[in-house]
């Protein structure tokens, strides 16, 4: 079968892209949030090349189980194979391009196009058409016309990623030492995690990067932006982050995780003491499994983005994709992740807690949306977009002497991860191939055992 996708030919880099971010000076330009030409380059040089999160193993348990999502603006079907593997197929019929699957998730024998009755099995192979005789009379070779498969699919601890680019580094290399930190949420108990409930979808009139960057390294906003929401949920203010004795910002290849070691600062904002109790109960076993350090991260004040647009919060257990829909619009797909081994009651509490806080009507999400929309909209002004935006906090906070993996910076009130994020973005936009993308990592690539 030759259902392998055709890849894009790299276009020239956009003129002037080198000047929209000057990371060493701690400045970016608002233009990057509201520019159609930059957006077109992002679809090609970021979304058609990077590894993108497409789903969780628990969403597609048996053969024929599928979910639909997008990689950039490309619609895809993620479907479990008989072999146990996963295929990611373009959700477009290779006859006239019509969408073949209209539901968000399900279990199926295959997909039949509404237009001319082309039928595809779970593997994506074309099995037949309405009026099949005319195809046979035309010597049509149906083995060449299945649903197109993306270049590569791989997973880490239940998280399934895919890339359109056969030249991209392996997922392992792409994630690098960030996996050590991912384990704090995705592998803190035997059996791993699962998604509970469905996919919560909403739209924002904001640029996708402003949201992704908020999760990569911006806890700074929380104490101010979310004060009223925190008072509603907690009956008091958000933890004063500058009071934490020890916290970090860690990044690699543009991914970033900022975290404190307070165990339950994030989970507390769900306002459900049973969840705090659950984390305290499992903490000793997490320490045994992952060590003391990461047992302090299971629900601590923290956030993470895996470049370019996959983010999560340990504690709130919200997992999300900021799907780009133009330079000034996103579609947000959100799921709730829980430990498989947790009781149904605990799983339900997390689902409800996440809905109360990080859903379209969630008290924290509404705060963020308003800010992000206006960070984007102000850049509609040509003159405004030309102005510098400051991104220089924590410029001299790199930690040379640490056993922690990755590029490690002191403190989570720090724009180091945000800078690394925009730097990676700019590097990709300035590189026609993966070989041209500079390696800016300076920390430990592997965990010292």
């Amino acid at each position, binding site marked *: 079968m030759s259902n392998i996708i055709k890849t894009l030919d790299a276009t020239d880099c956009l003129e002037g892209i080198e000047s929209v971010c000057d990371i060493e000076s701690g400045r970016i330009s608002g233009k990057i949030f509201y520019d159609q030409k930059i957006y077109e380059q992002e679809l090609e040089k970021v979304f058609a090349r990077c590894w993108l999160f497409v789903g969780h193993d628990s969403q597609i348990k048996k053969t024929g189980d599928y979910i639909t999502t997008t990689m950039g603006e490309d619609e895809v079907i993620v479907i479990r194979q008989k072999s146990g593997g996963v295929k990611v197929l373009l959700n477009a019929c290779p006859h006239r391009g019509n969408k073949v699957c209209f539901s968000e998730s399900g279990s199926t024998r295959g997909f039949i196009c509404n237009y001319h009755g082309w039928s595809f099995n779970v593997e994506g192979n074309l099995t037949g058409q*309405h009026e099949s*005789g005319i195809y046979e009379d035309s010597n049509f070779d149906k083995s060449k016309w299945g649903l197109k498969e993306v270049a590569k699919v791989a997973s880490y601890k239940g998280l399934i990623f895919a890339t359109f680019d056969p030249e991209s580094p392996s997922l392992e290399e792409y994630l690098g030492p960030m996996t050590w930190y991912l384990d704090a949420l995705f592998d803190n108990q035997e059996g791993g995690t699962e998604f509970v409930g469905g996919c919560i979808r909403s739209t924002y009139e904001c640029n996708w990067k402003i949201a992704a960057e908020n999760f990569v390294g911006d806890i700074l906003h929380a104490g101010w932006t979310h004060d009223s929401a925190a008072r509603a949920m907690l009956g008091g203010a958000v933890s004063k982050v500058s009071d934490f004795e020890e916290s970090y910002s860690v990044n690699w290849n543009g991914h970033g995780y900022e975290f404190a070691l307070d165990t339950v600062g994030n989970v507390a904002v769900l306002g459900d003491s049973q969840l705090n109790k659950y984390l305290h109960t499992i903490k000793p076993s997490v320490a045994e499994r992952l060590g003391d350090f990461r047992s302090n991260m299971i629900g601590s004040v923290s956030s993470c983005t895996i470049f370019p647009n996959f983010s999560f919060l340990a504690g709130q257990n919200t997992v999300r994709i900021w799907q780009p829909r133009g330079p000034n619009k996103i579609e947000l797909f959100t799921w709730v992740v829980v430990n498989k081994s947790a009781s149904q009651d605990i799983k339900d509490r997390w689902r409800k807690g996440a809905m109360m806080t990080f859903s379209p009507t969630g008290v924290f999400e509404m705060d963020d949306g308003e800010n992000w929309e206006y960070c984007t909209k102000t850049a509609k002004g040509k003159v405004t977009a030309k102005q510098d935006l400051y991104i220089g906090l924590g410029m001299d906070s790199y930690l040379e002497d640490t056993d922690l993996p990755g590029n490690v910076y002191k403190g989570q009130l720090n724009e180091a991860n945000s800078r690394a994020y925009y730097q990676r973005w700019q590097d990709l936009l300035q590189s026609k191939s993966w070989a041209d993308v500079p390696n800016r990592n300076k920390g430990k690539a592997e965990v010292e055992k």
Partner: protein
Amino acid sequence: MEKVYLCKATDLEANQVKKIENNKFGDIAVYNLGGQFYATADLCTHATASLAEGDIEDDMIVCPVHWGMFHIPSGEAQGFPCESDLQTYPVEVVGDEVFAVIDVNENIIAKA
């Protein structure tokens, strides 16, 4: 009348279907529905598809290509896109051997 050997009864488990190639009458699908054997033409009446590759749901065979259905005992098409009934053949089980009984005069060769 012609008796066409299909398979051994013990080789077809309950609620399974198997395709038996036959150049004279067209390929035949033989079904075991809970111990009762049935035979029909294997080719879907709608488009090119081997019904033996489809799924049995109760006493229906679901075509693997467009998921149209036929009633296995009667061959009755259940609706779009399957609108022409499926040829059925009486079945005889002799000892462990399953045969289709085909009326040579009625059954001209199915389209290949």
